[in-house]
């Protein structure tokens, strides 16, 4: 019994999970989450945090603002953060990693760009691309183009900086609270304890009549654990073909998109979910421009909407800066966009099956994903687009 347990522990927390398997898990969970209530996104939870801070400071006044511990998006994010932390602790990978000052600045700038981009595209790469494409919204595919271009530009900038301004990322980082390589560590015990506490939160929430809130938190935890253990990463899916050429994460992301799209389509086709859900008026300049800005931001920060959060959970201080700027920047950008009326000018809300029919809509998403995966795989061999 003890030996089987220890073998299981090694499988789960001793070595990384397969990327494609985790992509399937993420896609399936997203369908479950949509069935339960709403698809996954990170940006609205971030904005909720930003709104909450700005309201507390008296900068804005929002009567309709939900507290972060009651808002679904905020709870999903908190779950992803804590899930990343739990998984890192259980795997003894947690450490507070403080970057040099220049990197901190880059994290902040990246976060700010992500905040602005997510407002323009009505969602981050998760809500505006992954979930929106799954919901058969044209804006999702538009943001995909923007994200690809943004990741390319962001990477070109990083290569330029390394060549011409190496001192900007110079200086030594510091590491605190790391577990030593050999010998016992307290980290797995702390992680296990934290996991038990998290599993108990739905019961605590249910006492106040908020059962769903506890469930949102656990969905987030599951996402966080899966991402941390597999390091499946959408930034990498977009960026890596332009960098080393490796296409594993691109193929995994394309697979996840197809699975999630089929799930969402079933829910909408059978009227279990409203057809207009998660179809935002961003098909046009919003999705393209927002995707571009977001793509640059996520490459600079080294983490996307979801990646920033779970990587912050495993102790990376650069992503703490990214999250803070994402939340505040997104909140302010949304305020400005709403007051200037820009929010209504960003594009059309196009539900693909209404425009071209169910079959062609599904076929289009599958075709785009297949082309993405195939193109990246071809480039893996020929490295026509790779900078390194």
């Amino acid at each position, binding site marked *: 019994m003890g030996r089987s347990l220890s073998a299981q522990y090694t499988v789960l927390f001793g070595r990384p999970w397969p990327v494609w398997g985790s992509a399937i898990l993420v896609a399936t969970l997203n369908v479950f989450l949509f069935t339960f209530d709403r698809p996954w996104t990170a940006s609205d939870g971030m904005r909720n945090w930003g709104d909450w801070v700005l309201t507390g400071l008296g900068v804005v006044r929002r009567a309709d603002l939900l507290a972060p511990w009651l808002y679904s998006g905020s709870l999903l994010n908190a779950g992803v953060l804590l899930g990343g932390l739990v998984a890192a602790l259980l795997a003894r990978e947690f450490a507070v990693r403080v970057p040099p000052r220049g990197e901190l600045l880059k994290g902040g700038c990246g976060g700010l760009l992500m905040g602005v981009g997510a407002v323009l595209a009505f969602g981050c790469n998760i809500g505006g691309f992954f979930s929106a494409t799954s919901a058969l919204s044209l804006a999702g595919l538009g943001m995909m183009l923007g994200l690809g271009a943004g990741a390319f530009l962001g990477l070109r900038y990083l290569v330029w900086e*390394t060549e011409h301004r190496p001192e900007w990322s110079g200086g030594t980082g510091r590491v605190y609270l790391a577990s030593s390589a050999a010998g016992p560590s307290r980290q797995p015990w702390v992680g296990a304890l934290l996991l038990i506490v998290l599993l108990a939160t739905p019961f605590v929430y249910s006492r106040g009549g908020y059962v769903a809130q506890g469930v949102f938190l656990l969905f987030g935890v599951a996402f966080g654990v899966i991402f941390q253990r597999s390091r499946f990463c959408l930034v990498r899916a977009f960026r890596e073909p332009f960098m080393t050429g490796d296409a594993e994460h691109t193929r995994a992301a394309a697979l996840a998109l197809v699975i999630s799209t089929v799930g969402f389509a079933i829910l909408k086709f059978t009227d279990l979910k409203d057809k207009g859900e998660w179809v935002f008026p961003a098909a046009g300049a919003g999705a393209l421009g927002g995707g571009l800005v977001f793509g640059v931001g996520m490459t600079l920060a080294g983490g996307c909407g979801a990646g920033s959060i779970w990587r912050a959970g495993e102790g990376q201080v650069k992503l703490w800066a990214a999250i803070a700027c994402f939340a505040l920047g997104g909140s302010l950008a949304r305020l400005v966009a709403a007051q200037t009326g820009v929010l209504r000018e960003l594009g059309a809300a196009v539900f693909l099956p209404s425009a071209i029919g169910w079959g062609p809509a599904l076929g289009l998403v599958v075709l785009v994903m297949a082309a993405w995966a195939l193109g990246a795989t071809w480039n893996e061999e020929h490295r026509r687009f790779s900078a390194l």
Partner: protein
Amino acid sequence: MIDVREPFEWLDGHIEGALHLPMMESLTRRDRVPLDRPKAVLCAGGLRSSTVISALKRHGIQHWYNVTGGMTAWVKSGYPVAGSTTLEPPPPPPPDRTTLDCRGLDCPLPVVKLGKAIKTVPPGAAIELLATDPGSVVDLEAFEKQSGHRIVERGESAGVFRFVVQRTK
């Protein structure tokens, strides 16, 4: 006769007159293998020797025999075993090593910097990379797979990941 076992096994006893060429060096130092004569290759049991033979065959070197049963069978059959009298010359000193300190940098910077740095050292030389981002492990593996340069050493201590990457071409 070529003995492809590790140095500590060689010191335990070997066949008189055999050439000692540990498996991991058999490709890089294959210039020591005579081309004109038939060669018998030996390890402890016969597995490593067959691996070395197929690897060197792919480099066009012919005339091979695998010693089935290896050194174990040789000793069992009562053939003479030489002691540690003929020591190998000490291995060449490790090539010049540049250290690339990427502690505190997040993905993808360590790999971007490594990609630049590896072009500045001659083929065969290695770069030591220090990083604190756990993501750098996957990044480095993708870099190794795609660039063809080799991670020859890796380790972790107190939250710092250490890689030694050798330029291959």
